[in-house]
């Protein structure tokens, strides 16, 4: 193949793109499947219409200046992945979750939880831009305001351990969820060790 022919072929590509961009300046929205297979959806609103996408790989196209609702069709999954490779290649790995429990009295972390913290730290350090979100939880003893504070203090204590081990503070967040997310549902004012915990999310 001559250099000139190769050049000619390469030169074709931008002009085709130009044509595509010129003829239909548009917004295209493609719904992807949820990783857990659960149903999802988006609503695409334009100036004078709206369309819902509820099945994976449905696409809504809203062209600039077009009248009416967006046009819906279905796209080939392989084509979507090939055309948007960066959007798939660069997606971060799913978050990892760990749980830390406290001994009775709530001040020391159990040995098994120490191991979980080590694993979380290693996982966070091995990720690009890895961060650790530490969420404290309380059982249903006390008022919800007290439990918000108590659970935040639990989270801050675990966060402090990560910081002492050298994890960068600006990539951590401590959250107190109070009694909103019990691991084991209980009636009010019930002491439950399994709910006095800190969950760790590595992103």
């Amino acid at each position, binding site marked *: 193949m001559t250099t000139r022919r190769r050049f000619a072929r390469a030169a074709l590509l931008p002009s085709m793109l130009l044509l595509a961009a010129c003829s239909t300046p548009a917004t295209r*929205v493609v719904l992807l499947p949820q990783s857990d297979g659960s149903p999802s959806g*988006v609503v695409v609103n334009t100036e004078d219409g709206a369309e819902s996408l509820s099945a994976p790989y449905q696409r809504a196209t809203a062209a600039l200046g077009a009248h009416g609702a967006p046009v819906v069709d279905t796209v080939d999954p392989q084509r979507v992945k090939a055309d948007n490779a*960066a959007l798939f290649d660069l997606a971060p790995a799913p978050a990892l979750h760990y749980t830390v429990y406290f001994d009775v009295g709530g001040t020391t972390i159990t040995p098994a939880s120490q191991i979980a913290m080590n694993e979380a730290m290693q996982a966070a350090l091995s990720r690009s831009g890895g961060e650790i979100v530490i969420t404290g939880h309380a059982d249903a003893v006390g008022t919800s305001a007290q439990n918000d504070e108590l659970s935040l203090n639990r989270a801050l204590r675990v966060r402090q351990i990560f910081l002492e081990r050298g994890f960068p503070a600006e990539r951590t967040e401590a959250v107190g969820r109070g009694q909103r997310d019990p691991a084991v549902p209980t009636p009010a004012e019930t002491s439950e060790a399994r709910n006095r915990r800190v969950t760790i*999310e590595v992103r």
Partner: protein
Amino acid sequence: MQGDIPRVPLAAIRGSLAKAVVKKNLALAFCGLVFVSTAVWAQSPPATDAAPSPSTRLTPEQRAGILKSVRGDVRLLGESGATRAAQSGDAVSPIDRIETGAESGASLVLRDGTTIVVGPSSRLDLKQFHFDSTTRDGGLLVSLLRGSLRMITGLIGKTHPDAVRVETQTAVIGIRGTDFIVQADPQP
């Protein structure tokens, strides 16, 4: 209870779309120009500032999220107008612009777990982000000015799906707990 994001009034959306429609004919005339200037822009060197940016030291409450993967030419523009080269691990503020060059891209995870991947030759404004991690109330408004994005919604999308929106020049996208792609052609 609803998210406390100020709702984008549909009238306002319609107003801006109407303006866009008026520009339709102009759009066709300027399209080639836009493409050329896009190419030039993509090749121009980024305004590099290697010094650690102030926003990497934001407290969790001040930042919107953290950059994960960064590929190629990716820049963050703060509210002040200062541009810096983005690196993985950088904090992104609630009002930041992310710009990517050709064959470049970036991903970030917002504090509520929403994942955004920005494709090549894109410009994305994070116009509004607020999130109370205790109650999980919050709101998110993203504007894709050109290029492509993929969004995997997080906790705000779960608790207040109405408070999550993605807008482009021609459409406003509302979500229902979701993973989706948006592509927006260059603005005419």
